């Protein structure tokens, strides 16, 4: 292990990032089922469904906040996508490029702070940017045939809102809750606890 270069990923960084991705890959897989099931419920205004879109984007923000290394957000989101594909998600292989695009959004936010700040504003920005990248992907790839003003634009905006709240703020809260349990003791995110 090389301790002088703080940007190098330790084994524990790699494995825990992967575990976060795996846990969310399983959640995605289950979430995909919920997503299909709620399609009926949201039929009155389908773009509103994107309000729960943020859950898809959570690993990107959480990964970045916990691991605090360049590439963490991108890695977590991409691996989560690959895992949900391996488990047999309905969107299968296409979630992989989508995951990469979404992860890049959050990665940009952390990079903008030069991987030095991991406070709430950074998390919110990461949530917003990953939402933006997700919205752009869907805007061009999936929603091209829908009406622009009544569907595509509200859909994109709601995706960003959802992502900012659920992935951004939610990811930040989740990181704090995780730190409180002591499992992040070997990460900078979990260092501030009293001795017993």
């Amino acid at each position, binding site marked *: 292990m090389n301790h002088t270069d703080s940007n190098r990923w330790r084994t524990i960084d790699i494995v825990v990032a992967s575990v976060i991705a795996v846990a969310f890959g399983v959640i995605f897989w289950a979430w995909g089922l919920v997503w299909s099931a709620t399609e009926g419920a949201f039929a009155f205004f389908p773009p509103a469904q994107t309000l729960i879109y943020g859950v898809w984007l959570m690993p990107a923000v959480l990964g970045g906040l916990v691991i605090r290394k360049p590439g963490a957000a991108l890695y977590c989101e991409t691996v989560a996508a690959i895992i949900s594909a391996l488990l047999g998600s309905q969107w299968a292989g296409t979630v992989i490029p989508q995951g990469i695009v979404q992860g890049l959004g959050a990665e940009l936010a952390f990079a903008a702070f030069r991987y030095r700040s991991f406070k709430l504003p950074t998390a919110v920005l990461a949530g917003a940017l990953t939402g933006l990248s997700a919205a752009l992907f869907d805007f061009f790839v999936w929603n091209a045939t829908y009406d622009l003003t009544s569907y595509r634009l509200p859909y994109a905006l709601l995706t960003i809102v959802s992502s900012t709240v659920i992935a951004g703020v939610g990811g930040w809260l989740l990181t704090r809750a995780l730190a409180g349990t*002591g499992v992040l*003791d070997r990460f900078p995110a979990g260092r501030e606890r009293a001795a017993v």
Partner: protein
Amino acid sequence: MSAVELRGFGWRHAGRKRWAVRGVDLRIEAGERVLLLGPSGAGKSTLLAALAGLLPEDSGEQEGTVEIDGLDPRKARERVGIVFQDPEAQLVMARCGDDVAFGLENRGVPPEEIWPRVDEALRRVGFPYHRGRLTAALSGGEQQRLALAGALALRPALLLLDEPTANLDPAGAALVREAVASALDADTTLILVEHRVAEALPLVDRVVVLEPGGGVRADGPPEAVFAAHGDALAAEGVWVPGRTIPPRHATAPPGDLLLTADRLGLPPRLAPTDLPVRAGEALAILGPNGAGKSTLALLLGGLLRPGTGTATATAELAGRDARTPPHRWRAPDLARRIGSVFQDPEHQFVTGTVLDELALGPRRTGRSEAATKATVDGLLERLRLARLAGANPYTLSGGEARRLSVATALATAPRLLICDEPTFGQDRRTWLELVDLFAELRDAGHGVVTVTHDADFVAALADRTVTLERP
């Protein structure tokens, strides 16, 4: 062929005020076979982790030095193989063969040598399956053997084993010990942690006893150490061989029926089983690994839905609820009537501190704050956990975690107590205390069911035994 040298070594885990080990001066020559002893929480597992170079600088504070052949252990990992207390935590790959090969790949062993070495390691530990077998489909004992094979395949000069036979049935434990004995080359240095000294003695030629407060308590050939310090060590909790244990059998005949299992089973984990459970009786459930003992304990405890047959509580245990099966009771009612201790203590923890863990049950069953506090304080004292009250349950040593899990089940004062392997990995002192505790409960009219591989425990406590066969 590795020598170990510790000078004033100490380690304090991040987040703890107390040192886990401290002031250890020790030299172990190449080829020696050492049994490392000490009461629960003395720092044995921590010391092994240090020797394996697995205490990262960011996870605590070090004092003094450790050296393996003059090197920092973090740089000498190539020479060391370790098998941890918990085998499940150390399997890396999905298939057994790949898992053994994993270490060889990491060390850069030429590809054409890898599979012969994997096969040889598996053969040496008597692994019964093909390489392609999934690691997830192994029983605890088989995982233990696979982990040992993974360490042996690396041909370590220093082999570290942390309670390698905890949780194994007696036959399985004997097999693993044989595997270790036959797998050691003449010049392999061995450091073994094992509470049950008598079984481990044939493997070792030197005993080192850690002092819980710091330092080394005794060191030397087994006979000499036990002759000179036997009584004192036994009092502190070391299983000094040849000491008898006073039996604690019931003095009165068993009382009322509490629970009956009628063809109770869950295929394929447990074949249908008939069993009465009585108040004032200590019942021991025995059987080889994989016989379904833990499954039976969970079914009796109302935690799993039976696949076949029924578990029926009597009015004595459940009052008006006697007509509904235990797995359908409301959780607070269940916790008041039946206390369950899981095989893996960590599976049982639901909160962030030892204190909350103990208080949870009483609170949920509607006890007042004052009563809860009294119960919790009493248990902390009795099971010597008081100084760990604020600690995270997942950072406890193996023995401490076991004591906590028993205490959580006792906290709601259930009429029936079901414990899965309550004594594994326990030092002698805790062991005797647990036997006393169970005996007291039984004599006060509670039902006590224990699943166990521990023959001493059965001899000391059980009034009746039931042996399950593999389904």
